[in-house]
């Protein structure tokens, strides 16, 4: 069985706001959510000052106190984004349908806030014990499991952890489940809440974080900027969506994944290009069909050069009909949630047939010679790709396309 799969609802929590209208308004305006790290996060002696925190997100507005006891911040974000996506999709499932409803989430490192707080109390404050729910809070599948309890979904549910590609891997696998009839509906995406002192110190030590802001593909870029948030998408077969009269945002047409087998942290243009081709093959689309690339675009020296080379290699023949967007300049690098936020931005760009600005751009870098979108403008396109290339050389690319109404 092979079925066409469409997206009928999206939800987000990010530095741009606590819902998708705010997220999309921020994207269209090019209003970067990057700013001084705050919200009570200890950043004593941290070399980089800025992050893209979801400072407007207050879990207590979405959960009562009792509900919050077992939930880390990253799980609350996943649930709130999923609620928005499901409400938008207006999805109502029968008990039987719930047994064939899947949830696949991505997270780079799970409940880091709970882990950090627990270990701090042990190591620094010499407390004799940690909170009894530390393990269920920090497990990377905590968001997915909490969603099953809230929704009563009993189909295939799991969590993917592939660093910065986690959400794309999650969305891609959920897509294949629905396409091949292993599930009839799926929630897929990712969430991440990495703003803890220990985590910030670890990123500082890796020396890839920008001293100011995220400037993808720009000369003078100084690295990535950490973000947090969640993105969730509702996937279902095209026929089902049409039969129930759902609003179809876009078709999820293809997914490709591969490993560079090259280097632990250095990206590979060959690996990225190969994954783009795999995704296009899976969508049965030629490179000429693609009008927008939502780049991995971290703003690190290495990524943007190799990704530019990969984009030129795959789309070189039609660069004048292509625009590259790089939304990490807006919502930061939300690690395991990032590609879900990027997928949502790609879907909404397709729906409105527009491109959005890449924020913080300063000057063209000859080593990043791609047609970068710098403004919100109409841009007719039939299909788009959304790239993720993780540390460890693990690549995941989605292909999205419009559904003729």
């Amino acid at each position, binding site marked *: 069985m092979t079925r066409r799969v469409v997206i009928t609802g999206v939800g987000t929590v990010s530095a741009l706001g606590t819902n998708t209208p705010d997220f999309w308004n921020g994207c269209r305006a090019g209003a970067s959510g990057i700013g001084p790290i705050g919200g009570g996060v200890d950043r004593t002696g941290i*070399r980089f000052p800025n992050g893209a925190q979801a400072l407007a997100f207050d879990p207590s507005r979405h959960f009562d106190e009792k509900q919050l006891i077992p939930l880390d911040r990253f799980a609350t974000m996943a649930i709130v984004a999923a609620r928005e996506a499901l409400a938008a999709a207006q999805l109502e499932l029968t008990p039987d349908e719930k047994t064939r409803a899947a949830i696949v989430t991505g997270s780079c490192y799970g409940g880091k806030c709970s882990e950090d707080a627990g270990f701090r109390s042990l190591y620094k404050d010499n407390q004799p014990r940690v909170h009894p729910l530390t393990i269920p809070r920090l497990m990377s599948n905590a968001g997915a499991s909490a969603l099953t309890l809230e929704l009563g979904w009993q189909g295939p549910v799991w969590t993917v952890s592939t660093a910065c590609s986690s959400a794309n891997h999650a969305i891609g696998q959920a897509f294949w489940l629905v396409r091949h009839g292993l599930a009839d509906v799926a929630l897929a995406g990712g969430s991440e809440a990495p703003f803890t002192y220990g985590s910030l110190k670890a990123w500082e030590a890796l020396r890839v974080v920008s001293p100011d802001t995220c400037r993808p593909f720009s000369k003078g870029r100084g690295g990535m900027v950490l973000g947090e948030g969640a993105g969730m998408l509702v996937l279902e077969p095209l026929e089902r969506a049409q039969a129930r009269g759902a609003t179809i945002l876009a078709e999820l047409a293809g997914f490709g994944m591969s490993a560079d087998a090259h280097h632990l*942290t250095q990206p590979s243009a060959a690996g990225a290009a190969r994954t783009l081709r795999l995704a296009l093959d899976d969508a049965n689309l030629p490179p000429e069909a693609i009008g927008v690339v939502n780049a991995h675009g971290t703003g690190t020296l*290495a990524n943007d050069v190799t990704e530019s080379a990969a984009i030129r290699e795959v789309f070189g023949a039609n660069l004048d009909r292509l625009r590259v967007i790089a939304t990490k300049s807006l919502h930061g690098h939300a690690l395991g949630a990032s590609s879900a936020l990027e997928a949502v931005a790609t879907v909404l760009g397709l729906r409105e047939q527009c491109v959005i600005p890449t924020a913080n751009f300063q000057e063209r870098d000859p080593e990043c010679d791609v047609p970068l979108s710098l403004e919100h403008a109409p841009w007719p396109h039939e299909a788009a790709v959304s790239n993720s290339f993780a540390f460890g050389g693990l690549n995941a690319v989605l292909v999205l396309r419009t559904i003729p109404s």
Partner: protein
Amino acid sequence: MSETVSPEVLDRVLRTLAETQKLPLEQVTPEASFEQLGIDSLDGINILFALENEFNINIPDESARLVRDVQQLAAGVQKILDEKDAQPAASA
């Protein structure tokens, strides 16, 4: 980087580098480039981490990015140490 590197600083830099890279000390000469020693970007941050601990200094990302050989590395460490000495002593 025209910093004059003291023999003691140079010796500690060479030892730290050899130890971090698991190389015989005699192979790590001041003249060696990172390329010759097989040092890639990931090795680079390991070396910076080891040097920060060895000398109790902070090496900024921007200056670290430009370093390509052992001589530049030692000169960079010396510069940071000299600047540290020039500042009034903080609480130990």
